[in-house]
Structures are given as C-alpha cells and as structure tokens.
C-alpha cells in the first residue's frame, strides 16, 4: 500500500510550496465547479446539451474552452520560468521543477492550446463558410473532441499524481529513456500525445472530406474563402504528418515500458532516429499551426477593409506551395547533427524558399488594405500587429536557416525568441483575431471592443518587451532551458526586461478574460447575424446559428457569396418561403464519444503506471465503445419543418 502511494505521489508532486499551492488551487477550483453545477442544477443540462452533443458549433465552443484553459496553464508556467530567471542564482524553482515547467509549457501550448484553438475555429467556421449542415462525420468529430479533452486531462493529471514530464516538449532520447528518466512523467507525455494524436488525425480526415465533398452548390474550389483553403491544406498536413509523430512516440514508449532498444545508447539504438521522425512531423506541424492563422487574417483583413481579398489565386498557390515545401525542411531543426555540408545546404535552401510564398501572402494582405475602408476593430488590430511581427519572426528564421549562423545560434535564446515571434505573432494573434471575429457567431453577443483593445495593447507591447531582449540574450550566448545563471555575464538586465514583458502579457490575458466576463454582463446582442458587414456565408445566418445551420442550402455564385447576395439584393435579403423549408436531419446526441475518451484515458493511465490490468480494462472498454458505435444505426434525428419554420420566423427570416 505504501509503495502504491509512493508511486502515486512522488516527492516532486509536493516538495515545494508553489506545487502545494497549485495543488490546493486545482482542488478548490474543481470543487467550486462541482458546487456551482450542483447548486444551479446544471448537471443534466451539461450532459444533454454539451457533453453528448455532436453539433459542430458546440464542439467548437468546447474546444475553445479547452484552449483558453490551457492557455492559462501554459501561461502560468511561462510566468514561473520568467520569475525564476529574473535574477541570477535564483532559488525560486529547483532545476527539476524548472525542467518540468518548460516541458509542460511547450507541450501544453502546442498540443493543448494551439491545436484545440485551431479546431475550435475550424468547427465553428468551416461548415458555415461552405454552406454545409455539419461536418461529414459528426460523431467522429465529437470523438476527436473527447480524445483531445481526456488527453489534456491525462497530461495535466501528471502534475498532481505521478510527476510531470521533464525532458522538454521535444522529448529527445536518450534523456527520455528509462535508464536516465525513471519517473512516470515521460510516460504521461507519451500516452497523452498518442491519444490526442488519434483525435487529431480523425479531425484532419473529417475536415478534408467535409471541404471536398460538402460545399454548397456553386462553391467551386476557387470560390472557397481563404480560411476554408487553409483548413483544407491543414487537414492534409495533419493526415500526412501526424503518423510520424505517432511512430516516434510509440517507439519511445516501447523502449520505456517494453524493453526495446530503438533510441537507447548501446544495442544499436540511435537517438537521432527519433529526432528525424519527430521533426518530419514537427516541421509540417509548424504550418498546421500557422496556416489556419493565415486563413483567419485573410478573412479579417478583407472584411474590415471592406474589400475583396487581393490576389486570391496567388494566396491559394502560396498555401499549396507552403504545404508541399513544409515536408522538405525538417533537418533545419538539427543542422548540428553533423549530416554533412551538402545535406545542410539543401535543407537551408529549402527553408529559405518558404519565405517566398509567405512573402507573397504578406503583400497580398497589405494590398487588400490598400485603399480599403479599414475599420480598426480588435480582430483587425491583431491582423495589423501580426504583419510586422511575423515578418521579423520570419526574417530571424531565415537567419537561423543560414547553416553557419545556426551553429552559433542553435539552442540559444535567439532560437527561443524566433519561434515565439512566429508562434505568438503568427499563431496566437491569428487565433485571438479569429476568436473576436467569430465570437458573435458562436455566442450571439459581441465582445466589448474597449476592453478588447486594452487586452490587445498589453499583449502586443508585452510580447515585444519579452522577446526582443531574448534575441540579444541569444546573441550573448545564453542557452535555452537553463534554470539559472550567475551574475556578471551581462544577462541580468535583459532577463529582467523580458520578465516584465511576460507579466504584461499575463496582464493582457487577465484583461482578455475580464473582457469576456464584462461582455457577458453587459450583453450587446448581435441581432442581425451580420455585425461586421461580412462577406462570407456564416454572416447570412442568425447568431447564434440554429442547430441545422441553413434552413435552405444557399447557391453560391461568387467568392464573397454573402457580400454578393447583399449587393445584388440592394441589402434586402430575400428570405425563403415557408413552403421551401423541408425537414432536416441533424446528428443525434450520443454518450459514446465521451465514454470512448474516458476509456482511452483509463487505458493511457494504466500504461503510464504499467498497471496492466487497468490498461487491459481500458482497452476492452475502448473496443466495446467502438463496437457500440459500429452497431448503432440510429445516428440522426429529424427536425420537422414546422420547428424550422418557427425558428426562422422568429428571426424574421421567412418570406411573408
């Protein structure tokens, strides 16, 4: 019994006041949620309306909740790192805790913040943008969501039970091998990413089929809004890149719990094989993250410049070029491996080539704004901030792609600054822009612009204050992932400025959350469904969108379909007659996706602890859940035409 407790709660889960405080906070917040749900009798509502839902709009909102929660956790990790580094020889965190924190920061931000955020926007926007009633496989979509949620849960459980992973988000062997890293943290890392990977590939397949097969009549490929194009290529990237990650992680897991020798030292193991597999996934992953953000900017810039997107076809060619090139650059993550000059030159050049299509896109966004009537809303502010930020991040990327320079800059804060420059300046700005842009469509009310602007400025200025000093720290030779440094190296002042910036970004997050709460309290409803004077089909629907999306599927004649409809009807939409409305099928609610996720959680947890009876139980539950889904032939329910007429009538969307 004592041994089991020691395994459940090793010293790293309670040996510092900060950890204990965080544990207490987790328990208190969970208890508060349970009490509130019980007090207001919301359990049934939660189960019936949300957990069992297969409606893409609700799934999108649930992804968004996961993403923002994880942004909080990853952000707290970042602030702890910056606090530790604020002064030389700081003892706020021990080396091991620092290692755990930079590992969970990176892993959470990539897999459980950015990815769910992207899927949130895909789910909310893509079916509406293409005039579809849902995604191709609604239940699979719910399964993806619950695999993501339970994987995120499994990863976060490691903080309280068993101990966090500590080998960096890239988890390079041999450090991740059992002989060097005997704790449970790496097992948690491997199992949670393997499980979320299954859900991610399913999402990729789902959206690729949806976009290829379910567009409204008249929407040819070249009439698809750019966000749909970015979702299309992102899905393809997911399908072709994620298996490499699965293999890299699975082989590490086999080494750890199965005793194989893929990445060990000795027995012919080759740690560099892992690094290759990891980055064959990892570089396309960079574009999986940033292309959706590009898509958001294309929508936002066109909408708030009141102009058609400039150079649409070159935009399409650019994303396709980026997609293809992204599979040919992975070695630039480890030029110092010593593969030889010719190989490094090839990958250096292919990396620099990507700057060309990216540059084309940047010019297209600028030309879209040129002579447009630009409205400085919050999404547009993020778009404007993105352009210079991303250009500088991209330029420092080209510097890193220069092989001899990389030998100096590799593994320093210059690299840290570079990838935060593109990941925050590109991805996070894009996702926040998308959140502000589609918020009224998701919830039916606007986010307050005033507080949104305040959050933006804190976040934007904080970003520069944080990362510009880090470029210089890198040039002065400060390596990444060190938990402290002695005074007198000239790093202290720059680190302190960086820490101040990080807390500004933290304040920006707090203001952003305040903006959401403020907007709930001072609810400004979006009664028209088209608050931004939008151009694409989602704005033709009421906010929030009814379960069935389109009462009658629109016919698309133009790239900016809704803009064209408004223009040709002199702003007087011609609503359908009650007669034209027929009964529709919507996906039935099902508890199966939730239970499948739970089963995977049990399986994963059993493997983490190598308690094989638990793992076997989880596996049987997974199979049972799959069989149940397979045998369930009753997947859709019908909404009768009168209900639809009622809803459309209430929004004033029926022909008199």
């Amino acid at each position: 019994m004592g041994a089991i407790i020691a395994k459940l709660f090793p010293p790293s889960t309670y040996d510092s006041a900060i950890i204990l405080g965080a544990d207490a906070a987790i328990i208190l917040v969970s208890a508060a949620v349970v009490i509130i749900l019980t007090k207001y009798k919301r359990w049934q509502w939660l189960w019936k309306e949300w957990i069992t839902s297969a409606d893409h709009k609700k799934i999108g909102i649930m992804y968004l909740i996961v993403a923002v929660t994880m942004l909080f956790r990853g952000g707290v990790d970042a602030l702890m790192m910056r606090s530790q580094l604020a002064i030389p020889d700081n003892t706020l965190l021990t080396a091991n805790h620092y290692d755990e924190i930079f590992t969970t920061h990176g892993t959470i931000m990539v897999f459980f913040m950015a990815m769910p955020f992207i899927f949130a926007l895909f789910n909310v926007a893509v079916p509406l943008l293409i005039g579809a009633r849902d995604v191709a496989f609604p239940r699979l979509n719910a399964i993806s969501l619950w695999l993501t949620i339970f994987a995120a849960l499994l990863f976060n459980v490691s903080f309280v039970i068993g101990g966090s992973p500590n080998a960096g988000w890239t988890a390079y062997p041999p450090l991740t091998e059992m002989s060097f890293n005997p704790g449970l943290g790496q097992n948690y890392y491997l199992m949670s990413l393997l499980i979320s990977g299954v859900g991610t590939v399913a999402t990729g397949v789902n959206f690729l089929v949806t976009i290829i097969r379910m567009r409204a009549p008249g929407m040819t490929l070249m009439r698809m809004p750019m966000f749909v194009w970015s979702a299309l290529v992102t899905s393809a990237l997911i399908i072709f890149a994620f298996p490499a990650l699965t293999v890299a992680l699975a082989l590490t897991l086999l080494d750890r719990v199965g005793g194989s020798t893929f990445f060990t030292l000795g027995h012919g193991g080759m740690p560099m094989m892992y690094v290759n597999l990891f980055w064959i996934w990892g570089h396309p992953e960079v574009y999986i993250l940033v292309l959706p953000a590009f898509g958001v900017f294309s929508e936002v810039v066109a909408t708030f410049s009141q102009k058609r997107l400039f150079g649409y076809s070159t935009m399409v060619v650019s994303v396709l070029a980026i997609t293809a090139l992204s599979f040919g650059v992975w070695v630039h993550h480890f030029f110092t491996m010593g593969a030889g000059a010719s190989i490094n030159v090839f990958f250096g050049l292919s990396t620099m080539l990507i700057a060309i299509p990216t540059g084309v896109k940047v010019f297209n966004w600028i030309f879209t704004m040129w002579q447009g009537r630009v409205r400085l809303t919050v999404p547009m502010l993020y778009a404007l901030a993105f352009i210079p930020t991303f250009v500088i991040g991209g330029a420092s990327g080209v510097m890193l792609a220069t092989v001899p320079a990389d030998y100096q800059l590799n593994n320093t804060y210059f690299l840290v600054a570079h990838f935060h420059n593109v990941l925050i300046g590109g991805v996070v700005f894009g996702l926040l822009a998308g959140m502000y842009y589609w918020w009224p469509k998701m919830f039916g009310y606007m986010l307050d612009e005033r507080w949104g602007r305040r959050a933006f400025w804190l976040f934007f200025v904080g970003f520069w204050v944080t990362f510009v000093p880090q470029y210089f720290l890198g040039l002065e030779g400060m390596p990444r992932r060190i938990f402290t440094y002695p005074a007198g190296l000239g790093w202290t002042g720059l680190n302190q400025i960086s820490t101040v910036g990080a807390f500004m970004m933290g304040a920006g997050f707090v203001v952003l959350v305040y903006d959401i709460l403020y907007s709930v309290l001072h609810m400004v409803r979006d009664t028209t469904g088209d608050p931004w004077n939008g151009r694409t089909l989602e704005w033709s629907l009421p906010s929030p969108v009814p379960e069935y999306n389109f009462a009658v599927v629109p016919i698309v004649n133009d790239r900016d379909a809704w803009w064209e409809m408004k223009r040709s009807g002199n702003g007087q939409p011609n609503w359908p007659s009650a007669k034209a409305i027929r009964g529709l099928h919507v996906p039935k609610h099902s508890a199966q996706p939730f239970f499948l996720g739970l089963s995977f959680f049990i399986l994963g947890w059993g493997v983490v602890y190598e308690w094989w009876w638990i793992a076997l139980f989880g596996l049987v539950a997974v199979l049972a859940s799959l069989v149940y889904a397979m045998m369930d032939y009753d997947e859709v329910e019908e909404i009768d035409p009168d209900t639809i007429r009622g809803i459309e009538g209430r929004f004033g969307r029926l022909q008199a």
Partner: protein
Amino acid sequence: MSLPLEWTAPETVAAPEETPLEFADTEQTHYIFGFWLFLASDIVLFSCLFASFLVYRGENLNMGSLGVVLPINLTTVMTETVLLLTSSFTCSLAVHELRRHRVRGVVTLLAITLALGAAFVTLEVRDFVGLVASGYNWGQNSFLSAFFTLVGTHGGHVTFGILWGIAIIIQLLVHGLGTKTARKVYTFALYWHFLDIVWVFIFTVVYLSTILK
C-alpha cells in the same frame, strides 16, 4: 427583383441503375473517401516503420552485430504469404457478391477471408514465440526491435481487421444488405487489400532481402 439567395434545395440526384450499392447514397460515399484518407495516413505510419527498419538494419550491419541470421525458414513465410494473398482474393469475391446483392455469398466469403487471416496471424505468432524462445527478443539489439515492431504492427492490423470483420458479418446478418452495410463491407475490403500490399513489402524488404538472404 433579383433574388439575392436562390432558395432552392439541391435536388437529390437519383443514382443510375448500375451504381453499386455502396456508392448509391452520397452520405455513405463520404465514408469511403474518408477511409481512403485514413489509409493514406496509415501508409505514412508504415513508411516510418519501414524507414526505421532499414536504418537499423544498416546500423546493425555496420556494427557487425548479428540479428540478421534469424531461425526463420522460407516455408513458413511463404505459407503466410499464400494465406494472406488468398484471403485478399476471397475478399474481392465478397465484394463481387456484394455487387450481385447476395448477402449469403458475402457473409460466407468474408468468413473464409477472416479464417485465412486468422491462420496467418497464428503462424506469425508461432514464429514470434519461436524466436523469443530461442533467445531472439527485441531487447537484444535495435534491429530486432525494428523487426518485431514493423512485422508486429502489420500483424496487429490484421488482428484488428479480423475483429472488425466479425462485427461486419454480424451487422450483415442483422441488417441485411443496404447502402450502409454495403459501404462497410467495401471499406473493410479496402483495408484488407491495403494490409496485403503492406505484407508484400514486408515479404520483400524484411524477409527476402534481409533475413532469408
């Protein structure tokens, strides 16, 4: 006044007579397309395992460590190959029966396919057990790790296919032939042929050009 939205519902196009059952319902064809995409993803997975196998083979040859001389004989591997290729043939016959709307034929041929698959898995497991019994386990060197993982992943796929196939036979018996069950038989057949193709590569790369060379 011109209509901003042409509010006509898209007409459902009736499938022509000769359209096979599994393609008759548009919604079901989404699953077929989606399944092709899944297979694409699975090909990348196997490609990574093949690449690892080849890298570790080279590494172990360079090191001069053994592992390439395994007590595996050609007869067993040939038998496995014949079993799996035959099962692919019977699987095609099942789809042929599907096109002729004969549920009993589909069920019988699927059952034969699964039986052949089970025989294949049995032989493979016996091979693995024999290897481990004579001291060749995957902890010995990275070549053996890669060998067991690549071949075992394929075997795991076949095992999963057998379970899936049983579930499909049950559904055929319960629901008969419809657009949905037909689609399931069809995607199962795609999966089964895919495993066959992967085996052809394993046979060539792992057995013919490495172990039995």
